């Protein structure tokens, strides 16, 4: 047999990876195939499934379709030492860094708020060493890491990263492909301890539907060891069974189902409500300092009893209806950061 060549290896630590045989054992022993009611409160879901030091990943993309009620609950329960996938993780990651919950990041797109500018809190903490960037990736690399995991594989090949420092700071490898004879990157699987995914609707067992683009949640839900679903609404299972082709996440992947209308606020929920740019601007302004950051969390996380109170505080039904109108292109957005 001809020897295959391993050409290069990233120097970054292999985080979130495990032997697919170990993941299979986890699935066998911990993921029930039984259809049982998994509805619970955000408080219960976080205290049950998210522990200090875990590797977490959040669904959606940037400020779009993010489970903010779970993010705030992580802050409230003062979970520490988390590692988070920076898979165009923006507001969610920034809030958890600002709160001191996330201490390590696998960076894809992180520490920025797209057009809104860089994240004051994340920049401060990364630059002063409080938060450690473990590895660098691209967006495609991170989602293919989840896809490899979803497929029960140790890696997926890809034609990216070669020749760059992004590769050097990753844990990918480059081989000489035995079919083409050309260099090919192998992207290691990533099996997060917990994925937190906000969806349009789910039944009590966790069968979930998402409207519009899936980003990488189709894969992430299978990659993670535990999946917390938050849903804009709980629907009867009959509705799932009426259109089974609309199921994006089947129940046996899911460990907790939390019903929370407007659960993505201040982020966008496609077709339902737009970004609350005023709130995001307030957050970005306050998190410029440590004091302001404390003020933000005191007001919006510690100062409210639950997400309903939070929704009242950020403007209540009037604000939410306005965000709905903007989302549905019936009203012009406002960009206070412009």
């Amino acid at each position, binding site marked *: 047999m001809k020897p295959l060549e391993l050409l290069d290896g990233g120097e970054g630590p292999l985080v979130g990876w495990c032997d697919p045989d170990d993941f299979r054992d986890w699935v066998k022993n911990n993921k029930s195939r039984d259809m049982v009611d998994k509805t619970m409160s955000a408080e219960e879901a976080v205290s049950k499934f998210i522990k200090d030091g875990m590797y977490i990943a959040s669904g959606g*993309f*940037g*400020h*779009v*379709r993010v489970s903010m009620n779970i993010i705030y609950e992580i802050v409230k329960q003062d979970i520490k030492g988390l590692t988070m996938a*920076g898979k*165009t993780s923006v507001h969610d990651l920034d809030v958890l860094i600002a709160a001191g919950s996330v201490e390590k990041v696998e*960076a*894809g*797109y*992180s*520490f*920025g708020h*797209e*057009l*809104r*500018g*860089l994240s004051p809190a994340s*920049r401060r903490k*990364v*630059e002063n*060493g409080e938060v450690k*960037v473990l590895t*660098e*990736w*691209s*967006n*495609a*690399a991170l*989602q*293919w890491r989840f896809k490899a995991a979803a497929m029960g594989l140790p890696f997926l090949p*890809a*034609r*990216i*990263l*070669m*020749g*760059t*420092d*992004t590769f050097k*700071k990753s844990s990918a490898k*480059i081989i000489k492909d035995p079919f083409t004879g*050309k*260099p*090919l990157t192998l992207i290691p699987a990533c099996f997060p301890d917990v994925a937190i995914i906000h969806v349009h609707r789910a039944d009590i067992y966790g069968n979930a539907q998402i409207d*519009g*683009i*899936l*980003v*990488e949640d189709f*894969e992430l839900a299978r990659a993670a060891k535990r999946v917390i679903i938050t849903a804009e609404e709980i629907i009867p299972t009959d509705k799932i069974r009426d259109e089974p082709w609309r199921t994006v996440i089947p129940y046996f992947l899911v460990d907790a189902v939390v019903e929370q209308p407007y659960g993505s606020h201040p982020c*966008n929920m*496609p077709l339902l409500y*737009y*970004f609350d740019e005023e709130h995001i601007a307030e957050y970005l302004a306050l998190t410029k300092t440590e004091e302001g950051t404390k003020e933000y969390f005191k007001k919006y996380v510690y100062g409210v009893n639950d997400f309903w109170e939070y929704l009242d505080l950020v403007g209540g039904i009037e604000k939410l209806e306005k965000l709905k109108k903007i989302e549905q*292109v019936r009203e*012009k*957005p406002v*960009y206070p950061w*412009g």
Partner: protein
Amino acid sequence: MLLQYSEAEYMVCVAARILEDRKSVFVGTGMPLLAACLAQKLYTPNLVIVFEAGGIAPILPRIPISVGESTTFYGAIMATSMDYVMSLAQAGYVDYGFLGAAQIDPYGNINTTVIGDWERPKVRLPGSGGANDVGSLCWKNIVLMRQDKRRFVPKLDFLTTPGYLCGNREEAGLPAGTGPYRVITQIGVYEFDENTKRMKLAALHEGYKVEDVEANTSFDILIPDEIEYTEPPTDEELEVLKEFDPDGILLGKKNKK
């Protein structure tokens, strides 16, 4: 000279004129999206806009501010996933990509990760995002960025996204026939020498001179014997831009940087 239009508007208009009709383009928000929309409206009506989060060929009701928000698949021909669009790009279906950058080197490699040392950066930037993917997989990449001596550097603080690497892009395993195509700054447009793969002035914007290029570049940049000039934004172009971005949200922001 910047009375009627901003530098950003000039750059967007030049970018829009570079795109070809009946081709596909990966866009991020901000200048790239405005350039694509402007091109679609005036020059390349059949340009196919692709968003990395999964939206393909939408009918944009307004300019999205995130590449994942719902307007990116409003009236689209497909609302799919990142895996799907990245796979399309990997299979050769995406013709153009747009990239921004904090630093660029003579081979068109770019940095969007850190200024300073990676371990303890002076400025921590967002990282690759989709840039390494776009820069690796699209056929032709266009970089839109501000030019000065700290940004046009002989050696990047961090090589986030491949240009021509050291001229060995293909040997490194990146798809054959791909690479940076143009760099557009406030001063001019750059291309890459066919043999050396090093950056070369293609055209200056109105009002700029070769000395401006050299004064704002920290490496030896190839200058052709005959200098060409770009056309400044036309009234029609500026009107369309105003239509897309009436409040200057997308361009205003860029100007402030």
